[in-house]
């Protein structure tokens, strides 16, 4: 097990280094494809192993079902993102948005990013977890700024600044938590998650509550919860599309994972009431704040970014409701959202490359320019808006069901209504882009099969996820939910 985890951590670094040394683009492509495939394979192996040994913990590493859920997300997205990057970056070079010598840097950073995210998920020490989360920011910052044009720089600057300020608050929180630990039991096993979990009820509630606030804000900023989400639309819209997919699908989820890890300990000390209330509040606020920007939007990638804010809100609501069912739903929602949203970002990548713009008004008649892409796009939009029989509906429905089970009639109804608001915006623009008349300069285009494969993979998962959930996955989620509840 240890070896596996180590491999999963080292492999991306190695691939990254190889990439930097290589000049030949083809080799780079194949190395990275192979590398990502191998990484995903290893991660899946880890998950498989977890289902047998339930939990693995060493001095600094800790993996259990909860990490497994997120590892699954990272595994899937790393692979699809890399696969999609191949044709995408090729085209970028052809279009002249990027030069050939930027390509190695891109792939190297991509691998670094993967490494950072995996390390967030496998470390068992809250301090190191903080380090890793900050690491993801730094690794992705240069990816966001990849094109080094004005708006990309602006986005990256804001991204780093806001996230670092936020993450500093998280550091403060972590320190306070450590202080609580020191006061309670001394310095042994500082910030070791497992240990803290065991002794959580001995900590001083007031201090821990203080810590919670800072940790929540810090990781919440990274997870894109409103109103700390402000960096998100900029970064997502300026990064290269595969990276946008990763950011939205994997990074946000990883930040959320860090938050949850902390909360598991904190709720052992101060109880769940305050935590749940705050999470519910932020969740609703995120959904609410996303709506106006989805209803009136000019940039298609920002549109998707705000929908990510909304979905993070939904997940927050899930953890805020806090019943086993709700948490189960929230975790499932993390997976579903990651798959669907990344696929959508890839699609938008293709579309914006074809139309040479991200302006919704100028993207018209996809259905007649790229029928296959249009079909996938509509399916993706339907999925992301939680329409059956696609995967997100299942988690959405379970979540709402959990709310009603908790006698939250009005909150549940309100959430449903808000989702309609988002639906209205997304559907409106999706229809305008897909079915309107084609501008004369556009003619029927053919899309790279590799890209379609990458998206098709996610699409299959979406459709299957809508009608069938593998029992093994269901078991993982149930156990993970138990861990979150603190059972």
């Amino acid at each position: 097990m240890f070896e596996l985890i180590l491999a999963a951590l080292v492999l991306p670094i190695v691939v990254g280094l190889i990439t930097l040394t290589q000049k030949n683009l083809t080799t780079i492509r194949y190395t990275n494809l192979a590398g990502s495939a191998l990484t995903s394979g290893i991660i899946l192996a880890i998950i498989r192993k977890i289902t047998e040994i339930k939990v693995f913990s060493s001095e600094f590493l800790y993996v259990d079902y909860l990490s497994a859920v997120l590892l699954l997300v990272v595994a899937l997205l790393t692979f699809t993102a890399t696969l999609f990057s191949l044709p995408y970056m090729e085209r970028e070079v052809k279009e002249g948005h990027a030069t050939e010598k930027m390509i190695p840097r891109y792939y190297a950073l991509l691998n670094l990013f993967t490494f950072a995210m995996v390390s967030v998920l496998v470390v068992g020490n809250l301090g190191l977890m903080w380090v890793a989360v900050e690491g993801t920011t730094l690794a992705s910052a240069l990816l966001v700024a990849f094109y080094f044009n004005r708006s990309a720089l602006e986005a990256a600057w804001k991204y780093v600044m806001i996230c670092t300020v936020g993450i500093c608050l998280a550091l403060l929180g972590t320190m306070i938590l450590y202080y609580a630990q020191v006061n309670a039991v001394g310095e042994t096993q500082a910030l070791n998650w497992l240990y803290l979990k065991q002794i959580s009820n001995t900590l001083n509630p007031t201090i821990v509550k203080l810590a919670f606030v800072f940790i929540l804000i810090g990781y919440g900023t990274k997870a894109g919860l409103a109103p700390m989400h402000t960096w998100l639309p900029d970064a997502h819209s300026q990064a290269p599309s595969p990276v946008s997919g990763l950011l939205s699908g994997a990074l946000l989820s990883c930040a959320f994972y860090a938050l949850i890890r902390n909360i598991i300990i904190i709720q052992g000390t101060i109880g769940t009431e305050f935590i749940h209330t705050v999470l519910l509040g932020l969740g609703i606020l995120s959904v609410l704040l996303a709506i106006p920007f989805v209803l009136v939007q000019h940039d298609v990638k920002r549109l998707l970014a705000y929908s990510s804010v909304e979905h993070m809100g939904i997940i927050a609501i899930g953890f805020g409701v806090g019943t086993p069912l709700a948490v189960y739903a929230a975790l499932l929602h993390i997976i579903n959202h990651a798959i669907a949203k990344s696929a959508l970002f890839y699609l938008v990548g293709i579309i914006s490359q074809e139309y040479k713009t991200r302006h919704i008004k100028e993207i018209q008649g996809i259905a007649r320019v790229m029928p296959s892409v249009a079909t996938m796009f509509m399916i993706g939009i339907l999925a992301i808006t939680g329409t059956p029989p696609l995967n997100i509906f299942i988690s959405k429905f379970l979540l709402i069901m959990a709310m009603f089970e908790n006698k939250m009639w009005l909150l549940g109804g309100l959430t449903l209504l808000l989702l309609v608001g988002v639906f209205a915006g997304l559907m409106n623009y999706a229809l305008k882009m897909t079915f309107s008349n084609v501008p004369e300069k556009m003619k029927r285009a053919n899309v790279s099969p590799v890209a379609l494969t990458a998206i098709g993979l996610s699409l299959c998962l979406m459709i299957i996820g809508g009608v069938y959930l593998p029992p093994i996955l269901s078991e993982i989620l149930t156990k993970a939910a138990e861990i979150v509840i603190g059972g």
Partner: protein
Amino acid sequence: MTENIYLIMLLLFSAGILLPILTSSSPKITNILAHGLSVFGCLAIVACSVEVFIAGGVTFTYAMGLPVGALIIRIDNLAAFFLLALGVVGTAASIYALGYSREYYKQRLGLMAALYNCFILSMALVLTVSQVAYFLIAWELMTVVSFFLVNHEYEKTANTRAAYKYILMTTLGTVFITTAFLILSMTVHSLDFQMFKGASLTNTLRNLVFFCALLGFGTKAGVIPLHIWLPEAHPAAPSHVSALMSGIMIKTAIYGMCRFFLEFLGVGPAWWGEVVLFLAIVSSVLGVLYALMQNDLKRLLAYSSVENIGIILLGIGAGMVFMSNNQPILAGLAFVAGLYHLFNHAVFKSLLFLGAGSVLYSTHTKNIEDLGGLIKKMPYTAVFFLTGAAAISALPTLNGFVSEWLTYQSLFYLPQAVTGIIPRLGSVILIGLLGLTGALAANCFVKAFGVTFLAKPRSKHAEQAKEVPATMLTGMGLLSLMCLALGVWPQGMLKLLQGVLSPFTGLDVSTLFKHQWYAAAFNIPQANGVIAMPLVIGMLVVGLIAAVLIYNFNGKPKNVEGETWTCGIIPNARMEYTATGFAQPVRRAYKAFLRTKDTVTADKSLNPYHGVKMKMTVGISYLIDVWLYRPVKKGILFLVNRVKPLQSGNLQHYIGYVLLVTVVILILGVRW
């Protein structure tokens, strides 16, 4: 047995969904395969419901790999009744589609055919699934599939807008449906419909469920003021799909209401019924009024669907009032009336849509101002359309008449059931308004048929019209026969409805109908009534014979040709009375409701006195839009534009937000 038929049905439709996509190379094969399969699928549906009526209801569950529980299929009489309607209309529509699809050989036929099959399947699922999660899945599937069908001809941007309006409204409706279902299921801690009966709810929750169900299903049914999507979406879809949408899909909403109001919620307070009645009468009067104003044939039909949903709900609402007033027999009568009209409307409205489709097929225009004289070009279509028009105007010996009569009968006893002067007076006026609806409907369909099929062709399209292929005629013929059969011999359907309604508490249909072979007679404590269709037919036939005899009393007359009298000028098509002109008196009399905006433009250059080339454009604006939807839209946009500046692009602000929320939560934490 039933289960096997059901599975076969599923199989057929699944094949119907897959094959067209695979064989999309040759449209002819696709067409025959897909619609052939759907014909058999619909027959299977009919068989299924018949089997249920004979052998009794069935329940079977399939464990699915989803965390939302097992799939429960339950077909009781109520479901079977709706399935029957679906099967009959579906069969006709599918046969019709065999011919009609030629229109789409160059327009993504494979996709359309697949969606068509999926559409029928989803409706069948909606009617049979008896578990909340899967019901919602089927419901949404139905919406989405029909949405793509509405959007099928996206070459016209208007269709896309219609589709958007449609899916937005229905999604909004689904919110309320979900809420209603989840409140119920979470109080009984089960997703199975069967458990909902007599769920112990507090009054507030009970009313909440009622309203959510009413709003949610009302949206799908197209009840005013939630109807705005309907007149946009139904015309946009391919005609055989419009037929199914108007004929069956909006009825699935009524099915949902029946489930809630009859089964789940049980007998409710009287005001529930009164609310339903109010919505119903508003829908029927405004619906038919707007229908009369339309010149687009399919839009006209769509609005008349709104009207007929209103009439159906009149029956159901009256039934609810009677139930709460503890008059089970009258309640039974009212529900029978409602459901009978539902079935009838399913039949003749789809017939009319298919007719409109045939007109579209051979003239390629829906604007009746450009039509005329088609009765000579396409005689059979004309006969079928006339049957539908007469039936929907509730003329005797056709099915519409029977259900209309039953509705009148049940409404007649309403004033004695309701309490309070306002409801009492209201229920009296109700009858007057229903009369008004009937008269307007007759007016509307005289216009529709007369202008479309009679007199001289008004345009080239109409002149070059040809009779449609046999398959399409067969489809329409089938439904026309149904219209006649259900009118001439209502006993069968009434017996069926007795079976459908008997299991529900609060109403009593056992003693309702004395089944003479010749008369649908009902007797209730207050009084009794007979409707002897054979007698009515007899009178008409005897009358006709008498008329013919008298006509030819002194030998056969000699018929001489002579031009129509138009003060001595040779008449041409431009002198004919137009559809707009035909509707003008009502238009003017009901200005207040229609908010007519008419403008006359004349080119005064040649003749400064009254000008030449006079042109009149007439328009009406819809109250609901003006009073409800536009303000809401404005308000939302206003809020949006107030909120958007938050994302100001200024880093300092952003960090400010972070600190602000930190402080707020800190304070919260301290105060906790």
